[in-house]
């Protein structure tokens, strides 16, 4: 789902959340809203474009340059549109020791793209990532909101196929910002179904739709 950035406005749940966020920080330090509101904006609008930066700055309000600095400093804000699935394969030390580079090369081969690129059909963006805090279940990757851990190469293949087959949800409530993540929440192929041995993490009670 691609959102037109030329005329941005918050959905009702997002606008409500913005007002609630204001109450969590001192009234004269509302600049603290920049990080959470940028996360919210990325959820609503897909990626952080200059228009989104402007919209976020005006929503708080803060000088635009302050939002620009934050958006470029932190890695989770995507300054360009990315694929439906953001494949972030950790390539830090523990994962590398357990074969992260092999996984990355494998995916590059399968998708025909290099690290940092997006497949032409807009499905996958592949990145190498720094330590994601999942070193004991290496090799692993983060896909949008979820971690997929203990990966063998066949697990990777299965995952890619499942991701391709997973549709987007058209549901404002489900997609509303809850926090950080790459774009709108998407039902991922593990919620409520027994995804096979590749995923170390099955979170019971983890509702479809991403909350």
């Amino acid at each position, binding site marked *: 789902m691609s959102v037109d950035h030329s005329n941005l406005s918050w959905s009702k749940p997002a606008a409500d959340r913005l007002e609630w966020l204001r109450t969590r920080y001192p009234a004269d330090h509302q600049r603290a809203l920049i990080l959470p509101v940028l996360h919210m904006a990325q959820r609503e609008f897909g990626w952080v474009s200059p228009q989104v930066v402007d919209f976020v700055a005006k929503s708080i309000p803060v*000088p635009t*340059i302050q939002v*620009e600095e934050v958006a470029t*400093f932190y890695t989770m804000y995507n300054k360009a549109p990315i694929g439906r699935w953001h494949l972030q394969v950790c390539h830090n030390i523990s994962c590398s020791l357990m074969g992260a580079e092999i996984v990355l090369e494998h995916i590059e081969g399968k998708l025909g793209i290099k690290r940092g690129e997006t497949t032409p059909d807009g499905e996958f963006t592949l990145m190498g990532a720094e330590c994601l805090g999942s070193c004991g279940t290496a090799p692993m990757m983060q896909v949008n909101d979820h971690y997929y851990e203990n990966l063998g190469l066949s697990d990777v293949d299965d995952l890619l196929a499942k991701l391709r087959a997973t549709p987007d949800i058209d549901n404002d409530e489900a997609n509303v910002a809850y926090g950080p993540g790459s774009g709108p929440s998407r039902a991922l192929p593990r919620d409520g179904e027994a995804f096979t041995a590749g995923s170390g993490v099955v979170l019971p009670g983890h509702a479809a739709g991403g909350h």
Partner: protein
Amino acid sequence: MSDQVTLTIDGKEVTVPKGTKVIDAAKEVGVEIPHFCYHPGLPVDGNCRMCIADVRTWNARAEKHFPARRPAVTCWTDAEENMQVFTDTPEVKKSRATVMEFLLINHPIDCPICDKAGECMLQDHYMGHDRKRSELREEKVHKPRLVEFGERIVYNGERCILCSRCTRFTTHVSKTFDLGIVNRGDRAIVELAQDSDFDHAYTDNVADICPVGALTKQDFRFKKRVWFLKHTDGVCGGCSRNCNTVVDHDRAEVIRVMPRRRDEINEHWMCNEGRDLYKTLGEAVRTSAPIAKVEGLATAPGWDAALAWAGEQLAPQKKNGKLAAIASPWMTNEEALVFTHLVTKVLKGQWLDVKDDVVDGYPADDLLHTDDHNPNRNGVIAAGCVPGKKDGKDLPAILEACAAGEVEVLLVWGPGLVNHYDRDAAAMVEALSSVPVIIQITDALDELSELAALVLPARNWAERNGTWTNVDGHHSRFKKALRPHGGSRDGFELLSELCVAAGGKPPVKTFKDARKKLKQDPDSDVRDVGDGEFSFFKNQSLYRHHGGATEV
């Protein structure tokens, strides 16, 4: 509990108010600690790490000095009672050389093409604290090299040492939030906010404070090597703020004007309009000799003949009382003193006022601009250029009197009377045409010069010494930078001679006496070039070339 602290720096004892930073305390005892990101006009950031020194605090319980937990940056560290600071130990020297090395590994050696060469802090501190060959054998980090920030400033990301002086300026001084540092690590660059055109009045200050050639001014790029420049104290005439300046010139031409530090007036800053003012110098139409349009006087009389004739016209007005005099807010205080004396004491004139030479300009703001776009209205008025108490006429009344034929001699200083923006020029000309004798003393010819019986060429602001008084009553002194236009006379001297020609005596003998009479301490507002952060010439290589003292 006293609010002063005493500490020793390199063995020298110094007492400073609590809250003073060590780097400033050091200056008090003549110890210059090298730095980049520190600037006395900006909040401290402490990111360049160049000002690291060996700082030891006194621990009363242990009764001894302890070194800092981590090497302390003196721009951030508050001076404390009984603190010991060492700035020239081998460790500190190594620290500086190390910081220089890190700064230089990705810095392009652009000196041959960089405007900043010769006044560059990186060059200076390299010569003073490093001088080692580069050990780098990698490709340097590349960044955008030619980024336009608005129409006046150019940014070079590779030269930038990310000291954040420019961003701190736009955040804390101009409060326009134009600049920020984006990206992380060695990908960081300064960027112009996406909603800014960088077109406000204070943009050029960022290029002044940039310690390297990362921010350069379009107006100065590739114009002149700085070691060819001569530097003269100046004062900006753009408005009644009177920002103190440095006029940089070479061979009878002003090349650029930059701010000079004056804490009670402009601190370290000036506006763009003021910087550009020197360009009008070349636009003025000037004469190199008095011009006469009257019977009995050659069209180009010499100065003696011209002054004598003028005196003959003026002297009778002592009795007739039909003299009107219009001073200019660009006159110096010294000139105003003599002008007033001439009109009110020698000629007993009552019809005396000051005009507005310039009406348009940047509107007043919270930083520097005032609403008065002329430099010295305050000083001229303070010298007495006001309508007489008994029978005085102010400027509108004078102009009416001219139109009604009541004025026999009109003495005007400077251009601008006819083409006053808020008056009908044609009506002005008509009114003034009825005045039998108009004597204009001016550095630039204008419509009035066509009407004047006698035009006496004076010197412009770059060609003479003088003082102005600003909106808050501070006096600022500017010095003669350029060789005067041939044939022009210094205003103070010329007016003194006019006093004599008109049958009187000048109020004072010398220029210095004038300032004494004006109750200005002759040396009170003098600031040498080389004082303060901004006048970095003291430490610059060009200063060395010209034999100036340096303590790098």
